[in-house]
């Protein structure tokens, strides 16, 4: 009786479908990716069960970090350019084209207006290392109020969102809310993290 020949199987796999799948995923992620935005400040937001989503456009984000510094950001390059022009006119500072362009690419910033020009003139690498003092919010020098007002005049559709750090004292947030109310903004959003709602209460 002849020996039964065990057919030797080729141990290699056909990887073609796997590659297909992988490239499909790569394409998907590449197309959906919006690179994580570079923030001037790290803010650890508290969590809430709210499911509302913040829109992508026409948003003013006022970030308050744990050292009570206030940062201002608004979406839209055109809005930012127009906004800077208005602020420049109001405060008697002038920005050249390069600085305006830099400003329109900034996500958010926390510089008083008198220091803004030198901040924008810096090369982007050293701009990251600047310790931004935050936008003045005291009643004598209420620049935040002007930023908000001018943004709303530039783009009336803007929604205002406050992004506060969990540990920031309420006093600062209260001041920000006061400024908003002074500018007749009575509806705004608080940016929060996701949290699962309790099932039984």
């Amino acid at each position, binding site marked *: 009786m002849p020996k039964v020949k065990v057919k030797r199987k*080729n141990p290699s796999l056909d990887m073609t479908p796997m*590659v297909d799948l992988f490239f499909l995923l790569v394409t998907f992620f590449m197309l959906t990716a919006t690179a994580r935005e570079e923030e001037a400040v790290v803010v650890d937001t508290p969590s809430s069960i709210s499911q*509302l989503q*913040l829109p992508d456009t026409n948003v003013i984000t006022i970030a308050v970090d744990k050292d009570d510094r206030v940062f201002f950001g608004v979406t839209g390059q055109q809005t930012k350019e127009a906004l800077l022009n208005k602020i420049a006119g109001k405060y008697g500072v002038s920005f050249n084209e390069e600085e305006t362009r830099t400003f329109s690419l900034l996500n958010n910033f926390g510089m008083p207006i008198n220091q803004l020009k030198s901040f924008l003139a810096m090369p982007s690498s050293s701009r990251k290392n600047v310790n931004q003092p935050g936008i003045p919010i005291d009643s004598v020098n209420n620049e935040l109020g002007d930023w908000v007002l001018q943004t709303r005049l530039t783009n009336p559709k803007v929604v205002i969102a406050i992004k506060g*750090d969990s540990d920031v004292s309420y006093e600062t947030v209260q001041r920000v809310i006061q400024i908003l109310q002074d500018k007749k903004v009575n*509806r705004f959003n608080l940016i929060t993290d996701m949290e699962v709602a309790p099932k039984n209460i």
Partner: protein
Amino acid sequence: MAEIQEKGDSGKGGKKRGKKSSTKVDMTPLVDLAALLITFFMLTTTFNKPQTMEINMPVKPDNEEEQIALKASNAMTIILGEKDRLFYYYGLGDPAENPEVIESDYSANGIRKVLVSPTVKSNDKMTVMIKPMEQSRYKNMVDMLDELKITGTKKFALVEITDNDKQLVQSKLGQ
């Protein structure tokens, strides 16, 4: 590498054939690369937009007279104190009435139980006033608004703390 050349025949008296090179391409490095790219894009993608909670502040009245006074029986005040402490009392906090200030906390058995208790739930007109003290954290306020949302309390307002309330808390703490 992954391909192991299999010997085509056992060589039993067969003709010597020209060595046929395999047409299969080794795909492993390709897969490696693709997986690396997937990982990169997955990590840099911000999938979900930030969550928000919307709050509406009461419009500042032009003249005080037009405001309708809140009845004491329909009012409840929650004071957010420092170090994550929380106090509440019913009524408007008139010192003459000497309202009973009760301490509670942010846990599921704390203020949430109070907000679903019949005193609050069965009274449709019950208005909850949140008064965060200056020393309280921002998180406290968000947590409180969240509790109100969880318990489905419709009428609430974020109010600035008064000296009255501070005194009430002081006397409560002094006990």
